[in-house]
C-alpha cells in the first residue's frame, strides 16, 4: 500500500517537473519590436539634447578647482599657528606709521 502511494507520489513529482517541457515561447508584440528597433534613434536624440560643449566642461572644472584652492588656502590660513590676530595687524600697521 505504502509503496503504491510512494510510486504515485514519485510519478506525480516527475510529471510536475516535466510539465514545462513543452513550453511554447510567447510571441514578441509588434509594439515591443518597434520600441526595440527605435532604441538607436532615441539614444542619438537624447545624447544630442544633452550635448555639452568642451569649453563648458573646462569652465566648470576650472571653477571647481578654483573653489577648492580657495577653500584650502582659507583653511590653512585659519589653522596656521603663526597667523596674526586682527589686533596684531592693526598694531603692526600703526607702529609702522609712527616710525614714518
Amino acid at each position: 500500500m505504502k509503496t503504491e502511494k510512494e510510486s504515485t507520489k514519485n510519478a506525480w513529482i516527475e510529471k510536475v517537473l516535466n510539465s514545462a517541457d513543452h513550453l511554447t515561447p510567447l510571441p514578441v508584440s509588434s509594439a515591443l519590436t518597434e520600441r526595440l528597433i527605435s532604441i538607436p534613434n532615441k539614444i542619438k536624440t537624447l545624447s544630442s539634447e544633452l550635448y555639452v560643449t568642451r569649453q563648458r566642461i573646462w569652465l566648470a572644472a576650472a571653477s571647481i578647482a578654483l573653489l577648492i584652492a580657495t577653500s584650502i588656502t582659507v583653511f590653512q590660513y585659519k589653522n596656521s599657528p603663526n597667523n596674526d590676530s586682527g589686533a596684531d595687524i592693526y598694531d603692526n600697521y600703526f607702529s609702522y606709521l609712527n616710525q614714518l
Partner: protein
Amino acid sequence: MVSMEGDDKLVGALKLGDQQAFQTLVNLFSSKVFNLCFNFLKSTEEAEDATQEVFTIVFLSIKKFKGESKLSTWIYRISVNKCKEIIRNKSRKKRFGFSFPLEKAEGKQGATTFYHPGIELEDKERAAILYKAIDQLPDKQKTAFTLHKLEGVSYEEIAGIMETSLSSVESLIFRARQKLKSSLANYFSETED
C-alpha cells in the same frame, strides 16, 4: 543561434553604429530575451520593459564587448542581471513599504498562482505548482534551473552566463532538482492529507 563567425560580423557592424545590424540583433534575440524575462518576472509588461532595458544596455555597451564569450551568452548575462535587479528592487520596495497601497494590491496579486500562457492546458496546473516551487529555490539554483529547464540553454552556455564552471552548473541543477523533488513531495503529502 548565430555562429561565432556570424557574431564577429554582427558585432563589428554594431560597433560602427549600423542601424540595420541593430535590427538584425533585435530579430535574432528579442524573443529569447523577452521569454527569459517573462519566466523570471512573470508579467508581460515588466518583461517588455526589461527587454527594452536589456537592448538599450546592449546598444550602449557593445563597444566594450571583447568577444571572449558568444554574443548570445553576453546578452543572456545582461538579461539575467537585469531581471535580478528588478526583482531585488521590487522586494526592497516591499520591505521598506514604499508605495504602500499599490504594494498591498500587488501582494494579493502575487499570492495568486502564475499560469504561463505558453504551457499546454493539461499541464497548466502542474506547471503552476512547479513555478511556485522554483520561486523558493536559492538564487543561483533558480537561475541555473530556469535557464536550463524553461529556456533550454545548454550547461556550457549557463556556465558562461553565470561566469562559473561547468561542474558548478551541473551541481546547481542537480541540487535544484533535489530541492524541488523534496518540496513537491511535501506539497503532495499536504494535499493528500
